[in-house]
């Protein structure tokens, strides 16, 4: 058994979990929206990609050119048309509404596609690997990890170097005052969920290439995303990446000890960190 290898595989798996978590982290960070439907939106994105590949015959990677804008539009419309109406009444209404959306997506997918497992097929890259000394590293996990890092770096640039990002941070700090300074919060929230959904869709398609998905696959994705965000600390994007890696490494170690322990080990690591550092490793957002 090679522990360094386990660390590397687990860390790369963390790239997936970080991608799962970006959208969740953004919508909580900016509008304090706890999106229970987040996992189902990841799965929905994979189905959208599946339909695109069926009808156009393009590979899943290319389908992103359609899936990402579609999911941006869906996120924008969802926030503008529905979730904005829930934000003035405290934490509970958005929880209930997104829980409802979660049920609608799961059952809609079940109705439309049946309970079968599906997978997006990208071809040779799925199984390609690189050799470095005695290590074999999968090209695909490496690619996904790179996408996660680039996504977070891109979002950091957006938040800290652009006018839109400044508005996002101001609204996150104090939405009422931002409105008094001329920011249209409702439009900004819609943009935020639209952008969050782009990363959610990216996660959905990339994970759909790696593993099978079914209409009921959403909730476990949601839990993994939640755990990555909480371990990393609310509001910190790089923290979310670290959180995803902690989760991935814990799962790899668990799997190495006994294959049935993989999922449990991740949850135990999450609980342990919650006990030792309840606000996560790198918290930024208060309340």
């Amino acid at each position, binding site marked *: 058994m090679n522990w360094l290898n386990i660390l590397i595989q687990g860390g790369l798996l963390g790239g997936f979990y970080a991608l799962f978590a970006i959208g969740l982290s953004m919508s909580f960070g900016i509008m304090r929206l706890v999106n229970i439907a987040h996992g189902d939106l990841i799965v929905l994105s994979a189905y959208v990609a599946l339909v695109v590949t069926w009808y156009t015959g393009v590979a899943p990677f290319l389908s992103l050119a359609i899936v990402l804008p579609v999911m941006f539009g869906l996120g924008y419309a969802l926030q503008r048309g529905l979730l904005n109406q829930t934000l003035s009444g405290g934490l509970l209404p958005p929880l209930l509404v997104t829980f409802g959306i979660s049920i609608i997506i799961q059952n809609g997918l079940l109705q439309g596609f049946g309970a079968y497992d599906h997978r997006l097929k990208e071809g040779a890259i799925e199984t390609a690997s690189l050799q470095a000394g005695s290590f074999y590293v999968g090209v695909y996990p490496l690619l996904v990890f790179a996408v996660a890092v680039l996504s977070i770096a891109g979002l950091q640039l957006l938040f800290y170097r652009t*006018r839109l990002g*400044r*508005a996002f*941070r*101001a609204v*996150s*700090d*104090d939405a*009422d*005052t*931002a*409105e*008094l*300074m*001329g*920011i*249209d*919060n409702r439009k900004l929230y819609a943009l935020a969920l639209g952008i969050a959904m782009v990363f959610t869709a990216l996660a959905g398609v990339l994970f759909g290439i790696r593993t099978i998905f079914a209409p009921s696959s959403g909730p476990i994705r949601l839990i993994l995303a939640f755990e990555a965000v909480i371990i990393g600390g609310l509001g910190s994007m790089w923290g979310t990446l670290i959180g995803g890696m902690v989760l991935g490494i814990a799962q790899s170690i668990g799997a190495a000890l006994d294959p049935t322990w993989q999922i449990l080990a991740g949850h135990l690591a999450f609980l342990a960190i919650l006990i030792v550092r309840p606000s996560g490793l790198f918290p*930024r957002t208060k309340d």
Partner: protein
Amino acid sequence: MTLLQTQNLSAFYGDFQALFDINVTVEEGETVAVIGANGAGKTTFLRTVAGALAAAPESVVFDGKPVGHKTPHAIVRLGIAMVPEGRRLFPSLSVEENLLLGTHSERAGPWTLKRVYELFPRLHDLRHLPAPSLSGGQQQMAAIGRALMSNPRLLLCDELSLGLAPVVIRDIYECLGAITSEGAAIVLVEQDINRALDASSRFYCFQEGRLALSARTKDFDRAAISAAYFGL
């Protein structure tokens, strides 16, 4: 010319009525004080004019148009900017980012970053620091600067003197002249009556949500104001 006129303005927090039939006018370029004891409705008045509290459309008329029903961000775009009570700077933004936030109203005019830094030179030295690391007076300057960046025709100032040392308050009030000389009118809400009356040409005194007294500052002796203020 009349810039702002409220006509029988009433405002509510749920079922609680906080303002009763308030009639206030502000002429272009003038400085008006709104004074009154704690809970008299001064802040409510400002928040209603700024759109944070809903009112009947015709009860707030700005530049000849009814605006009582408009949202805060739409009101800023028309040229009413607010310096909120307690400054309310954005803590995770730097001083300069706080100032730049005022540009989201997309109004052109005399006030730019450069002009704000000329008005408050200290802010230029501190521009890259996070807003909460500033002293109270510096934060107040940044809050005024942020409002100016939207190039308002009417600047609403809520309790500029709150929690500040007298010498700092004097510095800040000295800057108000530079703001009106660029054409903006100012509404000063203050509990510090002397300070507000010295800086303004007219005043309104609120008492329990109603207008108790209004007059030109120089026409009234302080005893009459005290009577209206305390409802004696």
